């Protein structure tokens, strides 16, 4: 077993260890945001270490071209997909907060028509209805 094989083995084991860490984190972390934060690690660093190991072990130029293609693909696409997922999670959390605070329909509408009319009148008096409708139309975009 030559030195290059040992280095390749260490790289492969480290890449697999990143996958194990991501699995533990996705299982154990309490929050959707922190789960997404931990899940992005093996997609970039783990894949890079694994590709380094395979490139050291195989070592022909065609293989290294394919490996560089995979690494570039992951580098470009992993932040984009994580950003899209986090945006949906953040908007869901924000909507839940607003609904708890009573700013969105769905909390007041369940109480019956009288309370709903009263709540709408209070919102009109406070002048907050325009802000809420603006936020919702911006949200639907």
């Amino acid at each position, binding site marked *: *077993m030559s030195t290059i*094989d040992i280095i*390749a*083995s260490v790289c*492969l*084991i480290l*890449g*697999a*260890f990143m*996958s*194990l*860490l*991501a*699995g*533990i984190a*996705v*299982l154990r972390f309490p929050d*959707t945001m922190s*789960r*997404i934060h931990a*899940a992005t690690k*093996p*997609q970039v660093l*783990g*894949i890079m270490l*694994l*590709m380094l*190991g*395979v490139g050291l*072990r*195989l070592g*022909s130029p*065609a*293989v290294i071209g*394919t*490996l560089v*293609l*995979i690494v570039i*693909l*992951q580098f470009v*696409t*992993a932040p*984009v*997909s994580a950003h*899209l*997922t986090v*945006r*949906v*999670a953040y*908007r*869901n959390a924000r*909507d*839940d907060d607003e609904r708890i605070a009573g700013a969105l329909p*769905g909390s007041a509408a369940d109480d019956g028509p009288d309370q709903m009319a009263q709540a709408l009148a209070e919102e009109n008096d406070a002048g907050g209805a325009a802000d809420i409708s603006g936020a919702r139309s911006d949200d639907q975009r």
Partner: protein
Amino acid sequence: MMWTVVIAGTMFGLGALFAAVRLVRGPTQIDRAVALDVLLAIVVGVIVLTAAVSGSSITLVIAVVVSLLGFIGSASLAKLLPRDRL
């Protein structure tokens, strides 16, 4: 190389198991999408490990396809999932 396969395969298997538990349990749909993303990254890792062990580069093409598929799946899930009404 034998011990490398055993250690790395065990780590991949445990990570996939934990991600699958989160995939079944996850309270929101977004947690499930994240767990699927982790599972696909682990699948790419296993394919690459297979290529490193067997010494043939045929399976690396599958790794390219799976990593592209992971991006398309995650992005379309983020676009098409309905809002959660907890």
